[in-house]
């Protein structure tokens, strides 16, 4: 980073070599000292990354090809863990459920916050209040949210059915039916997380220059056209980044199904991460669990890489 600049500084004294030699020597000594100090300051971070990030990455791949039972030494099983996973009927179910969750979460968690942000951006009053309440659920611990909603969802005395009943709408079994359980989990997760997405969109909307809307209006564009041709393209980048982020996050959904349904009813909410958890911490099969991690990484690596690239470009 600094090399071109320092080399140009070094070139100049070359005209007067007698004066340059000691100062170049000094400069080198200073450079070494600076590097040592820098690595001194970096060493704690390097150790943490090495032990808890870089090494586990390698170890995860190795584990996925090993059988680990903590009694005998780990043994190599080739692709045995992977074939074992593919033979597990729950494996396909878990991926289907996870994709369903991600798909539904995108429909709700992606478009609802965007439309909410567009709406809030138009409102001139109570802005602070809207920002406050929409973000409040984000602060609650996810376990608290999940347990609270489990209570709201209770088919008998729960808040939702009571509310629906009061206004004469049909009630639902929510978490207790395999057809609605996943959808119910998506609602919770949308409620809990939409605050952050909404506010990020809102921030993006506020950077759109007003002249663009004026120009579009002069060209005779109605509200929908302005939304499509001004608002949408101007926020495209943020939309794309959050889309990638959300795919990566929702594909790893765990807390809601673990706390609220335990994977049921009829395995309708078993997700990839829930199955991974079972393999590792219920069946004590760390090899197969690692194989599952590797598959999840392969599935999500592209999205993550795109996200990191885009955000790096932006800065």
């Amino acid at each position, binding site marked *: 980073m600094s090399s071109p600049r320092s080399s140009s500084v070094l070139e100049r004294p070359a005209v007067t070599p007698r004066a340059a030699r000691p100062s170049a020597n000094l400069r080198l000594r200073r450079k070494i000292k*600076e590097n040592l100090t820098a690595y001194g300051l970096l060493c704690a971070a390097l150790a943490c990354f090495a032990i808890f990030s870089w090494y586990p990455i390698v*170890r995860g791949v190795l584990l996925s090809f090993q059988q680990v039972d903590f009694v005998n030494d780990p043994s190599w099983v080739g692709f045995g863990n992977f074939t074992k996973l593919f033979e597990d009927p729950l494996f396909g179910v878990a991926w289907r459920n996870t994709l369903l969750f991600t798909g539904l979460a995108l429909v709700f968690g992606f478009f609802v916050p965007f439309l909410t942000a567009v709406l809030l951006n138009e409102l001139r009053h109570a802005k602070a209040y809207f920002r406050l309440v929409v973000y409040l659920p984000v602060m609650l611990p996810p376990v*608290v949210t999940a347990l609270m909603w489990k209570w709201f969802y209770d088919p008998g005395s729960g808040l939702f059915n009571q509310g629906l009943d009061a206004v004469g709408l049909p009630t639902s079994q929510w978490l207790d039916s395999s057809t609605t359980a996943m959808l119910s989990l998506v609602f919770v997760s949308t409620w809990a997380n939409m605050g952050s997405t909404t506010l990020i969109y809102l921030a993006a909307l506020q950077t*759109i220059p007003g002249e663009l809307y004026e120009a579009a209006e002069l060209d005779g564009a109605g*509200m929908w056209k302005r939304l499509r041709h001004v608002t949408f393209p101007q926020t495209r980048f943020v939309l794309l*980044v959050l889309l990638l982020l959300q795919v990566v996050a929702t594909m790893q959904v765990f807390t809601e199904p673990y706390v609220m349904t335990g994977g049921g009813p009829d395995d309708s909410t078993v997700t990839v991460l829930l199955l991974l958890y079972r393999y*590792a911490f219920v069946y004590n099969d760390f090899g197969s669990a690692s194989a599952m991690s590797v598959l999840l990484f392969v599935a999500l690596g592209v999205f993550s890489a795109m996200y990191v690239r885009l955000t790096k470009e932006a800065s």
Partner: protein
Amino acid sequence: MRTLISPSQLRSRKGKTIYWVVLVLTLVLFTIAFLFPLYWAVTGAMKSSSELAKVPPTLVPEQWHPETYVQSWKEMDLGKYFLNTIVVAGGAWLVQLAVDVPAAYALSKLRPKLGNLVLGLMLATLMLPAAALLVPTYVTVADLGLLNSPAAIWLPAAANAFNIYLLKRFFDQIPDEIVEAATIDGAGPVRIMARIVLPMSRPILAVVSIFAVVTAWKDFIWPLLVFPDTGKQTLSVMLQRVAIDMPLNLLVAGLVLASVPMVLLFLAFQRHILAGLTAGSLKG
């Protein structure tokens, strides 16, 4: 500021009517959607067990039982779990600052050889879904004998490429001339960091600090794995564990109590949290 809807449209009689209708509808909808569930929980905890199960439910408790909160605190030994959670979150905060700030400073201002490679390797970990590291990191933590120790949360939390990146970008904006001038005055790098750079970096330190605490407080899956000893668990893990056996009103009271610190934190540091939201997620 000009937005989607033009000021002239808003000024018309029709525009005004629509605006106020939409505003009131949004206000009501937002309050019902985001505040009412919280109200329901706070007051629900104060209803008697029989009233909680009643159909139709009561909007305001017929009989107030605020003592449920005290009872819940005692029954679940909440004091102990609050302390556990504070140790976990507070430690995660301090360790992250102690590890990530010097690292970001070194990468930004001292620019050592291979510094960019180091930063690249750190940023590369962001591409990994957290779930992919769950098992191998757990096995590593277990090998190191860190299970049941808060260090099992603190140390992996410090390997946070996001923090280092955010901090480095902020330090990059501080002119090198200031650092050079201090060097000429004889101050060493550590002194410059502590006396000059950090005081200038309060906003980003606040963002990193708050997010460190909030993340640790909210986390569930990692503390669930690394605290097999039930007495060492954090609030989230404990609440989940006892949820099925607890009387509903006591459980709900516990849920409310466990959220209070985060809600207060939000009310106190709203500006920082909302600013950090855009900084943290888009890094731009």
